[in-house]
């Protein structure tokens, strides 16, 4: 349990750009500023001559910038290679795709696991950040890449929050937006689930008030429990029943003990254990906190439609019928607000038993919808399909 902390800045092969300096600090919603911010990112495809083919992919809570190629640090496969790639709905033969690790993340971007200028770890000295702060850092990254306009912003879950925030913050710099399985405000239920996870992390004696990296330990048990609790919300009851029901794990009878008798227990334990190898516990605290604070309407006079008023961005919202993390009704509220604001809006609720995580897995109806919307938007934007050569 004393695995050394991964070096998150330095010669790890991750692509990074500095997006804030003491001269040009990043101003945060909390009122604090960050004077040194690096954002780690990955790109696929080629930027066209008039820079009109840029796609921003926003990753979810535990994701990273490796949407379409394997993560060289963890060795894990790309997390969205069913959607982003050559000939796929987000076609890397046609678009220049950028995915960056969120501010506060732990895959190369500045966050609680990176070091302050004085060489010590940020830990819980890191300022509490918001979704808007994450998007601010992404916009700064685009500025550094000398890119003005975004053809498409796309992402699910907290990635969908970033997509919504992109359209509101960058206004008409975003031509099309696809928020997936998301809400315009974090529900009390979700705040509750994530608070449970945070408490599990902070109750781990190895958390050491957030200073575990300096002390050479990691709150792995707490982080694993946080992941287990959250993971239940990402899958549907019907899928759990189909995959596990009450079946026993590698045994024929109950042990009358607290071993993982049931397959579901074994599955969740595995989810928790594999998660701690690749994720920083403090990052989990900060990113979930950013989700809790997310409420677009509250920042626009309590009326969600006001946030989108006058936008020329075209939207396509997707929800999944058995998602109870961000239920279809929460997505519909976004759609109603977009309609009320007069935005060009499509909305598809995909029938599936795969729950919130449906956007990561095989879901042909979802892909067909993505493809149709993106292709229509691309031709409206004047982006030609690259002819087969």
């Amino acid at each position, binding site marked *: 349990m004393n695995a050394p902390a991964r070096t998150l800045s330095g010669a790890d092969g991750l692509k990074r750009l500095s997006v804030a300096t003491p001269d040009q600090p990043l101003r945060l919603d909390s009122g604090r500023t960050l004077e040194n911010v690096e954002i780690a990112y990955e790109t696929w495809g080629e930027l066209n001559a008039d820079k009109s083919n840029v796609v921003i992919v926003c990753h979810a809570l535990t994701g990273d910038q490796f949407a379409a190629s394997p993560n060289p640090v963890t060795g894990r496969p790309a997390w969205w290679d069913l959607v982003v790639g050559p000939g796929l709905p987000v076609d890397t033969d046609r678009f220049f795709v950028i995915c960056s690790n969120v501010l506060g993340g732990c895959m190369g971007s500045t966050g609680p696991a990176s070091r302050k200028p004085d060489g010590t770890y940020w830990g819980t000295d890191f300022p509490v950040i918001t979704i808007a702060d994450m998007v601010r850092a992404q916009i700064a990254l685009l500025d550094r890449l000398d890119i003005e306009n975004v053809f498409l912003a796309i992402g699910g879950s907290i990635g969908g929050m970033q997509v919504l925030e992109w359209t509101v913050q960058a206004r008409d710099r975003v031509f099309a937006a696809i928020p997936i399985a998301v809400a315009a405000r974090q529900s009390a239920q979700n705040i509750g689930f994530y608070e449970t996870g945070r408490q599990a992390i902070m109750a781990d004696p190895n958390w050491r008030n957030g200073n575990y990296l300096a002390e050479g330990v990691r709150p792995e048990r707490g982080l694993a429990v946080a992941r287990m609790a959250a993971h239940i919300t990402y899958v549907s009851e019907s899928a759990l029943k189909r995959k596990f029901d009450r079946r026993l794990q590698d045994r024929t009878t109950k042990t009358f003990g607290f071993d993982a008798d049931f397959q579901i227990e074994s599955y969740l334990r595995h989810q928790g254990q594999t998660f701690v190898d690749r994720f920083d516990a403090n990052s989990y605290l900060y990113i979930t906190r950013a989700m809790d604070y997310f409420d677009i309407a509250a920042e626009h006079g309590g009326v969600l*439609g006001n946030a989108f008023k006058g936008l020329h961005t*075209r939207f*396509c919202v997707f929800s999944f019928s058995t998602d109870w993390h961000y239920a279809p009704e929460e997505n*519909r509220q976004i*759609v*109603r*607000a977009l*309609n*009320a604001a*007069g935005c*060009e*809006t*499509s*909305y*598809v*609720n*995909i*029938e599936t038993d795969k729950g919130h995580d449906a956007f990561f897995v095989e879901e042909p*109806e979802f892909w*067909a*919808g993505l*493809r*149709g*919307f993106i*292709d*229509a*938007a691309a*031709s*409206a934007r004047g982006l030609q399909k690259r002819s087969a050569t």
Partner: protein
Amino acid sequence: MTATTAPGIRRADHITISKFINRGDLVLDVGCGDGQLMELLQHDRGARTRGLEVEQTGVNRCVAKGLAVVQGNADDDLPVYPDDAFDEAILSKTIQELARPKFVLDELSRIARRVIVSFRNYGHWRVRTALLTTGRIPNLGHDVGWWSDGARRPCTARDMAELADQAGLSISAATAVSGKPVNGKSLGRLNWTAEELVFVLERKVKR
């Protein structure tokens, strides 16, 4: 504007409706199905279209074709649209299947300058004759019976005119599908002769 292919088979009432749509109009198709009318209006009339459809399969087909369609139903989702958001709102063979036709018409006349409805006319002479001779209302559109879920509301041209009047709308054009437009005084004749009708409705009191 949007890349859609020319539709194959065209519904007669869609063609009749399309004649009332002008280039550049912003049109809401309520109950847009798989988007045939929207494609026709974009392709032939140069209109900008939005759709509302309750069935998932229709919505998916529309979005896969690049049409801007929202999954939802007229009863819940119309009130969020702002006043005068559209040039036209269309109910193509939809109004007789709504749970609350008066409410929907009220809402559509608020959010669009004109409302265009196409519907089956139960005042047609063949329907009247059949009712007289068999004692039953024909062509309800459902094999199961008049009591089945979502069974159509049988109404005539005059009945529809009454609803329009109740909703504060006047009939600015009435035409038999595949027929020539006639003025309001000929409604009685249309009510005898047209199996399917298109009404163009406008607010009696202009805003």
